[in-house]
């Protein structure tokens, strides 16, 4: 059975001009121990979908339809207390900017204590501190930094702390929302290496959100591609490594510069992502798609299986 099962999720933002649909019927599932990558450009709805699934998306957003099942339980009908118990014990999130996620007037220690005390109030303070030090060591941070304030740590250190916080209660699912986007590549590499090691040791599943497709190719089990609020491709990572099927995926992969081989001009996808206020008719990608046909302008494609479990939403490719 899947750990997380999102079906036809729809998320709206209430703007002064009316409701804007940021996520339009997205479905995916995640099994225990799996690493599912969600990739897309800014505004594609990937963070929105994940945070909505966790029900932590703030105003002016609301969930307009679909279902979210965690371990068979219906998340969308959970009460406030049920959500509180579910949060962090079974599903945790690592947010993009650790500096913004941490309370500027509290030390790292107080963050840990708050988190642990909210779920394990029976633990003594000494035990909680021990656990906090243990967690920091797991992410290669010296425990004496427990006394630091967020602004006193470097970006990389803060991100590690936030990862340690996420693992406090050993949740089976970790959502990582662009965790390394704000860091330089060297730090990014180190942190990811550590996370993957921890993933092997502790066995948690990861929903990894990023705009960097090439990164996911290295460690994801499965990948999903979002465009303008819709899932256009989803499947095992192997197909993506071979170049992908959907024209958008292919465009993304071709845009990654090659280190080896002969010199080539940069390839990019012409045009820019559509505004969600007035999305294109039919397939949302059609204005930028080199394979667009008449049908693409009129009818919105649904996800259909192509080969070996890979699904694509494209008239031309299916």
């Amino acid at each position, binding site marked *: 059975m899947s750990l997380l099962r999102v079906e036809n999720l729809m998320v709206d933002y209430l703007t002064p001009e009316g409701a804007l649909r940021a996520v339009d019927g997205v479905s995916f599932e995640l099994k225990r121990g799996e690493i599912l990558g969600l990739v897309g450009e800014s505004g594609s709805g990937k963070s929105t979908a994940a945070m909505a699934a966790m029900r*932590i998306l703030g105003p002016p957003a609301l969930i307009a*339809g679909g279902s979210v099942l965690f371990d068979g339980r219906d998340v969308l009908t959970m009460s406030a207390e049920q959500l509180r118990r579910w949060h962090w014990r079974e599903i945790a999130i690592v947010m993009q900017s650790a500096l913004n996620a941490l309370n500027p007037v509290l030390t790292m220690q107080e963050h840990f204590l708050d988190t642990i005390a909210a779920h394990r109030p029976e633990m003594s303070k000494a035990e909680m501190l021990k656990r906090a030090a243990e967690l920091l060591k797991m992410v290669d941070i010296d425990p004496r930094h427990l006394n630091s304030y967020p602004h006193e740590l470097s970006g990389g250190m803060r991100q590690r702390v936030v990862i340690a916080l996420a693992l406090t209660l050993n949740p089976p699912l970790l959502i990582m929302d662009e965790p390394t986007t704000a860091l330089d590549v060297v730090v990014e590499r180190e942190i990811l290496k550590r996370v993957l090691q921890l993933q092997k040791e502790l066995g948690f599943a990861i929903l990894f959100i990023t705009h960097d497709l090439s990164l996911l190719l290295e460690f994801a089990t499965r990948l999903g591609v979002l465009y303008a609020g819709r899932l256009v491709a989803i499947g095992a990572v192997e197909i993506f490594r071979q170049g992908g099927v959907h024209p958008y995926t292919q465009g993304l992969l071709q845009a990654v510069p090659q280190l080896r081989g002969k010199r080539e001009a940069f390839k990019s996808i012409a045009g820019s992502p559509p505004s969600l206020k007035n999305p294109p008719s039919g397939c949302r990608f059609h204005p930028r798609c080199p394979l667009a046909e008449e049908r693409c302008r009129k009818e919105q494609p649904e996800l259909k299986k192509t080969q070996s479990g890979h699904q694509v939403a494209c008239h031309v490719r299916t």
Partner: protein
Amino acid sequence: MNPALLFRQMIANRKARAGMIIFGLFAVVSLVGPWLVQDPTAFTAVPHQPPSWDNWFGTTGQGQDVFAQTIVGTRVTLAVGCATGFLVVLLGAVVGGIAGYLGGRTDNLLSLLINVFLVMPGLPLMVVLAAWLPPGPMTILSVLVLTGWAWNARVLRAQTLSLAQRDFVLAAKVSGESTLRIVTAEILPNMLSLMTSSFIGATIYAIGAQVGLEFLGLGDISKVTWGTNLYWASNDSALLLGSWWTFVPTGVCIALLGFGLTLINFGVDEIANPQLATESRWVRKLKSRATADGSTPVVEGGVK
């Protein structure tokens, strides 16, 4: 952002519109009112009479018509209030703007000046100054501006500072635009809503402070203003004799005017910060479902 656009937005906004109507009413009264009522300084009836058909708001301790006094008093009070508001924002924009834009030593010096004035206790200083200078609206105006400009200067300086670092200003600098043009064409238009709300805030403060000073007898007590009306009411032992009508209408007018101006400011806030309006809309539509625990609400089918 230009003044015409801001004005249109203000009319469209519910709160600002309501406030402008209230202010408009008072403005009309201040302009036309004095011609439509009897002489407020004339001894017209028996003193200390409660409201009646002859004297709608009753009479003062000196037999004058309270209604006439209230209407006529609107003019000077409103005029001094608005003039103070305007001057305070002007002074604040000039000093704060120069400090924020030029930075460096100029900023340090001007900031010091602003801070020194900020820390000066307003009301005591006003009382002492008003006591030394000849009584009258001009004195009140100068005293109010002197003690009130620093607050706006600080606010406007902060905004100028943040705008001056923005990319479009740097681009203008690099492309050779003159300082004057940058300030008037790039920076000021972006501060329009802030200056509007500053002006309104300053006017509210000015009206209150003015009335306070005049109540203390530091204004020209021979002139008819809301403040002097209260001064005379107190002087003629209104409380002791129970003539509540000599001071209640004035207070209510001040409150209404102040409230109206505050409403305009609420509206301008919403215009300047659209997120406020967005969130209030969300709160209104999802009121029953917006939980205190902050989880994303689920509304099957969405909301229009």
